[in-house]
């Protein structure tokens, strides 16, 4: 059982890291601010979700698991709002980066 | 090389970088940033000493850690006051420096 949990952790956290890498590549390679924001929010939120899922087998109490999921939900909330604010500022500024 | 030593070397470089930035940057806001960098480096050095004093089942000596917490809060209040002074000088004089302009020659 422990082995299955550890394997799941390694696979899911690695997958999450790949998504973070994809988001960073998008940040560096996309041409303007809007597309870069798109890459960041989508890839990073999914990456964080996979990392949190991968860490769940390592936690041995339900409150700890709930705290990890709460971290993911709060990060999504804050990230979505900040993305909206940055996109609004870019839109108002005429599309400059 | 233990992790504590690695972070100790990192803190030494941070102190040097903060000192250089505070001396060389002409703008006061960048000086304040560099001084914060200097402070963070010093706190990290405290943390390394605390880590080396790990005993009694704790991961680090709690007294330097408590001093660092106090230091971080005091550094923030100093930064807030410095920034408020800078903004006030800018508001009053339109300049970000306290150097007096050279007196114009009276013809």
């Amino acid at each position, binding site marked *: 059982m422990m082995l299955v949990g550890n394997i799941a952790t390694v696979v899911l956290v690695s997958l999450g890291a790949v998504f973070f890498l994809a988001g960073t590549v998008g940040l560096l390679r996309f041409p303007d601010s809007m597309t870069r924001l798109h890459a960041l929010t989508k890839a990073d939120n999914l990456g964080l979700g996979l990392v949190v899922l991968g860490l769940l087998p390592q936690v041995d109490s339900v409150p700890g698991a709930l705290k990890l999921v709460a971290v993911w939900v709060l990060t999504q909330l804050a990230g979505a709002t900040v993305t909206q604010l940055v996109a609004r500022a870019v839109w108002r500024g005429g599309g400059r980066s | 090389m233990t992790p504590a030593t690695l972070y100790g070397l990192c803190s030494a470089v941070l102190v040097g970088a903060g000192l250089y930035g505070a001396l060389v940057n002409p703008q006061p806001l960048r000086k304040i940033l560099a001084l914060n960098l200097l402070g963070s480096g010093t706190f990290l050095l405290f943390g390394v000493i605390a880590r080396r004093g790990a005993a009694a089942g704790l991961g680090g*000596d709690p007294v330097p850690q408590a001093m660092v917490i106090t230091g971080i809060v005091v550094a923030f209040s100093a930064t807030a006051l410095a920034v408020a002074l800078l903004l006030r000088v800018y508001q009053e004089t339109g300049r970000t420096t306290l150097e007096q302009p050279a007196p114009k020659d009276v013809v």
Partner: protein
Amino acid sequence: MSLAVLADAALVLLVLGLALWINAASRAFPAVVGYVAFGLLLALAWLRLSAGDVAMTEAAVGSGVTGAVLIAASVRLRAAETEAPPLAAAPPALPLRLLALLLSGLVTAALAGLVLWTTGPAPSLADQAVQHLPGLGMGNAVTGVLIAYRALDTLLEKVVLLLALMGIWSLAKDRYWGGIPGPSRIQPTNGALILLARLLPPIGIVVAVYILWVGAAEPGGAFQGGAILAAMWLLVMLAGLRDAPAISRPWVRLCVTVGPAAFIAVGLTGFALPNGFLSYPDSIAKPLIIAVESVLTLSIAVILGLLVAGPPEQEP
């Protein structure tokens, strides 16, 4: 080389890279953003040094609230960045820069030599700190040091916060004395920000009270909880849902002073007991400490929020 050392080396490289970026960035706003990221990475470094309370304080106060003040300042000073002398100071000449580089290099070398030369266990007060914790009913040694052993330092730190606040308030123009901080009233027009300012504060308040409560036994405490409460208040003010309070309002003055006042009151009653100023009698130590910490958290939250809001710039 173990994986942990590789991870530490990667973190150190990132931190040093950000430090160089803060010095080398051409404009102030990217440098401030770099400073906020630097503070968060430093919080990770603190976790690697087994200092959970310091990591939380660095993330909340060192990176978060300081970042808010610096971002506001960099935006207001944006026009002044491209000024030339005599409106701005002149950059120093090359010999002066080389001298500064030499001096900084010497300081770095001295500190690095100190770190490398003094290996091995440092003289530690951990044993004595842990020894007296059960009498206070606490499990977290750092909170014990802050509230009980070095309570005088914490009291003076609160007084320093108060003095900084009074210093900032005294920078107001005469006709704005007692007025509202901030250049103008913020209108609630930004839907996303209003949504966040309605959703996040209830969660933030619960998290802050939890961190204050659990600080007795695990990493946490009054400063971290107070910083989170201040952040929630600042979020509500930034969204325009509530105006910043006029500093002449009685509740502002009361909240700001009740923390240090309660601390001093508890400390003075210590004179009546044989142990002297700021000592806690064993029987009621835990409830007394919790009471003092709660009042302290409220005071810290209000002071931190007002420090970020700045001097009054509108009529009361």
